[in-house]
């Protein structure tokens, strides 16, 4: 169940089936999917010598090229494909679509192909971004999720989400039993639509029998607004929280005196072994490893000093692309880690994080005072201050609404705009904080009383990583057979066997922290495989703007 490998296998099949000089035509969506999982050199070595977008209408006729198209069957892309076939630029066409085509789309393309250039038409269900081997995203960060209330879907987004999640299941070859969160209207609608789709496309969903059916668990972000608000201390999650990962790329151009080749860097576990080994490690361990990494490189570098002349050296470097690659990689990670470390100390993130963790995990009499203290401090960012008030509101807001009001006043006094403080009101609405009356007795409380799943397994890691995301708790209960049907109902049927494969989907977006928790569970429990994903990937910034956007429908 390695979702990156599955997408790579799709791409390999596309390009291996067609020997000869090739161009790869993509659309806006598939460009993002492909750029995460394929490198230029793998494509080049398979004779893909040009990559272009189907949207680009100034392409030149090159009849001696074969054309491989990988497109999302959106009406726009299909129309562009039709135009292309009417007036073909290339000798022959091999069409792959990332989702299910309608009959009329096929007919329209067949009608347009008057010059009989199409050789192949297939559906390859790679209609999502594969971030890590067990983490995917539908990349819908620019879509409005909600319709005219927080309990209805936006129609377009709903259609797109169903298609995306359906593709994930097809790519994984899973025909799951579906569970959702009882209090999520969105989850219920999605669960029943996916169930309907599986029955509609029963031929496609006809897979080998499993010992026990896989579980698709549909969760709603509103039930865990805490995870995306916390500072992260593991490498990948931290980079996204503090700098931002956009489609596998990190923009470092704002760092002063940055070398031109480091202005934009790629973080890929698939192509970068150092990253693969460290992406889930906490910042402290990462620091040690990066030091060793530099030493290792310097040792190798030192050996090459034996080479006598400069031209020898030049030759050496040229002859060892591996060496060059390594040196590039070393400076990439050193730059990135030192930037993270600078941001941590500049914004006193250790202090902020400690309080965040306390707010998220334990009741503490001093919490109000400490939040007030940090709000008054100048070396703490406005974003951090708002975050602390948000976390305080989630934990204490229901009992102590006046304290929250005081905190908002304090924020205003300390230079935070009224517009920004409105976030607190918005989060209360989005997460339905006022409606969570009797929840302490159910399983779907936002805080699980500071319980840490990994505590039992590995001992307390450290004060900054006390909190484990709620999804990890839910999975643990599911594996123990303790996830109650009344709170997490099945859309159809039910099953008592312990699941062996689980696909999690979070409406409203997942986080890298959650992905890391799931990766850890996968490692700890080898007899279960879990994959997680969502409509998008959040850090605090994107989550706050998501909440703002969500409540704008009201």
């Amino acid at each position: 169940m390695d979702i990156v490998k599955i997408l790579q296998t799709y791409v390999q099949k596309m390009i291996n089936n067609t020997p000869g000089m090739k161009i790869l035509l993509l659309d806006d969506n598939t460009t993002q999917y492909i750029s995460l999982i394929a490198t230029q050199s793998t494509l080049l070595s398979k004779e893909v010598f040009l990559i272009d977008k189907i949207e680009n209408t100034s392409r030149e006729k090159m009849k001696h090229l074969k054309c491989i198209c990988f497109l999302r069957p959106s009406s726009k892309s299909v129309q562009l494909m039709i135009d292309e076939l009417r007036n073909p630029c290339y000798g022959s066409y091999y069409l792959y679509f990332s989702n299910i085509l309608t009959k009329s789309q096929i007919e329209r393309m067949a009608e347009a192909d008057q010059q009989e250039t199409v050789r192949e038409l297939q559906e390859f269900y790679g209609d999502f971004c594969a971030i890590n081997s067990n983490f995917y995203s539908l990349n819908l960060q620019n879509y409005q999720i909600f319709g005219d209330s927080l309990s209805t879907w936006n129609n377009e987004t709903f259609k797109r989400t169903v298609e995306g999640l359906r593709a994930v299941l097809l790519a994984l070859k899973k025909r799951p039993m579906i569970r959702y969160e009882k209090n999520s209207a969105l989850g219920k609608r999605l669960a029943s639509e996916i169930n309907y789709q599986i029955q509609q496309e029963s031929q496609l969903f006809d897979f080998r029998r499993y010992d026990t059916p896989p579980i698709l668990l549909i969760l709603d972000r509103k039930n865990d607004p805490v995870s995306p608000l916390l500072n992260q201390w593991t490498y990948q999650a931290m980079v996204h929280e503090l700098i931002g990962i956009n489609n596998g790329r990190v923009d470092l151009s704002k760092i002063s005196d940055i070398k031109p080749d480091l202005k934009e860097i790629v973080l890929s576990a698939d192509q970068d072994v150092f990253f693969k080994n460290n992406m889930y490690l906490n910042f402290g361990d990462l620091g040690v490893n990066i030091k060793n990494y530099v030493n290792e490189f310097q040792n190798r570098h030192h050996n090459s000093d034996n080479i006598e002349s400069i031209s020898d050296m030049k030759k050496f470097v040229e002859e060892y692309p591996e060496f060059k690659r390594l040196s590039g990689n070393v400076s990439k990670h050193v730059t990135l880690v030192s930037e993270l470390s600078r941001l941590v100390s500049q914004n006193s993130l250790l202090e902020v994080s400690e309080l965040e963790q306390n707010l998220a995990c334990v009741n503490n009499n001093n919490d109000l005072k400490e939040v007030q203290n940090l709000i008054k401090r100048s070396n703490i960012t406005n974003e951090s201050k708002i975050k602390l008030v948000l976390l305080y509101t989630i934990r204490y807001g229901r009992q102590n609404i006046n304290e929250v009001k005081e905190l908002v006043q304090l924020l205003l006094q300390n230079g935070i705009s009224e517009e920004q403080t409105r976030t607190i009101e918005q989060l209360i609405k989005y997460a339905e904080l006022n409606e969570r009356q009797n929840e302490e007795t159910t399983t779907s409380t936002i805080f699980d009383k500071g319980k840490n799943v990994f505590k039992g397994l590995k001992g307390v890691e450290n004060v900054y990583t006390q909190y484990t995301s709620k999804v990890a708790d839910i999975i643990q209960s599911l594996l123990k057979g303790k996830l109650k049907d009344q709170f997490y109902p099945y859309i159809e049927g039910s099953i008592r066997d312990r699941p062996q494969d689980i696909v999690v989907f979070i409406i409203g977006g997942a986080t890298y922290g959650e992905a890391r928790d799931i990766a850890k569970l996968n490692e700890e429990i080898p007899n279960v495989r879990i994959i997680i994903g969502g409509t998008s990937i959040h850090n605090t910034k994107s989550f706050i703007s998501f909440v703002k956007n969500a409540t704008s429908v009201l």
Partner: protein
Amino acid sequence: MSAYLARSKRTFGVKAQDNNNNSSENENLLNVNLSIDNEVEYNKRNVVLSPEASLLTMDSISLKNNYFECPICNEEIFGIFQLNNHLDIVHTENQSGNVILSIFRKTQKITEDITGAKTNIKNVQPIINKSHWEKSSIDDKCSYPECKKQLGIRNGKQNCYCCGKLFCDMHTNFSMRLSELAKPDSNSPNWFKVCQSCYTSREGYNNAEGQHKSLTHIFLEARKNNIEKLCLEENLLILRLEKLAKSLSVLHEKKGVSVNQRAIEQSVVQWKEDSSTYQCYRCNSRFGKVRNRRHHCRLCGQLFCNDCLEELPLYRDIKDETTLIGTTKSCNHCKRIVFRQKEMNTKEKLPQEAKLYEQIKFNQSIVDSMLPKYNELLLKLSLKSSGTFSKDSYQEAALYREKLIKNFHQIDLLSKRILKLPANSKYHRTLQTNIAKGSIIFLQNNMITLKMLPEKDEINVINEDIEKTKRIKEINVAMEALNDQYSMLQGYYQDALFNRKFDNAKILEESIQDITLEIEKLKVELEEINF
């Protein structure tokens, strides 16, 4: 989960020293260390025995295929009979285990009271073949690759119900449905404990191939139907075109004689009445009296605006370029259909980079077939003790090596030639650069694996002759490249002159001179060598 391996605790920033660091040095030491770890682990297990933990998952107890936690080691186990079995195999030798056992038996009794099922657990045991089971002895080690834990009280001892080998608890913490013959069978009602290898090597378990659906057949069928219809239209339009061409050429011959051209055109196809529509048949733009006037397509007779109409060349025989006799107007739909076959059959001239790339591919295919053979020979040579390997295989390897290097060299030269080709557009330039990049990647991937031959003094392969012939070949290749460039540049030079782009012409002329000089130089060197 028995994965209570003693793990190093982490304080922030520093990893505590792992006490297993120097373990690989001494087998005995290793065992000692392990058993210390196991003591720790064991104590932990005892700690876990709080009443809460040992009460099992009371709410989910039934006698079918439920999942239980072993009250002693917390392992997840399917079915009561297997839990019983597990307790017998793993925990009986153990004093404190017996205490637990009695707790368990008690719970079991409670369960029976609740469910009213007073069946003997041993009778519920499903039938399964155990004839292939590895026999247990005093000194068993876990069969999982690279585990090798001593089996017994501490690490557990358990036959995999599938392969029958003995494993530790950690590596048998997996469950599968098995048939009576102990083979994986998803239809079987019974779950069994299996090892990690059997679990993960199940058919389809690690499949990286996603679902796909081929629609090629449906597409081609739809296209075929469509083309059939299209051919009828195509034939009709070609007939009209040829008729139009014929009548107009007659018109040309009878110069001066006034013939109504419109009448001829309308005799080919009936024109739509001007008043029949107020908008363009294609783009729906409204016609006006002065602006956006209506025009007829001469092939289909429909009304179009000026923008939707194209110039249509008239051939007396559409298959013969030389029969062009003039032009007329048609809509682009008609034009596309009438010239469809012609467009399909025209072959674009293969650009230079494509030709060179064909050669690169040829060289690459030689490398691909030769490199494995060479490596095989090398392996053979290195296996035989030095001095005794046969002269023949050494020479054969040397020959392979020489050929490989020659092909690498050739690929390198060709890719450089591609880079030097003139490009008449951004796209061609990108294409050329990427082909060259691709062949460099090929070289990098394959040259690294090209190992040196072992030293051998008596065979002095390199002599002057070889050196000379090598150089001659190089020069010939280079000359070929230069000649290609020369003729191409000449072509561009003529074009530039013709288009009166004198700036370009001047630059091109200079390049031509450079190349001529270079060619001369090589010629001289070649003569010297041959002399």
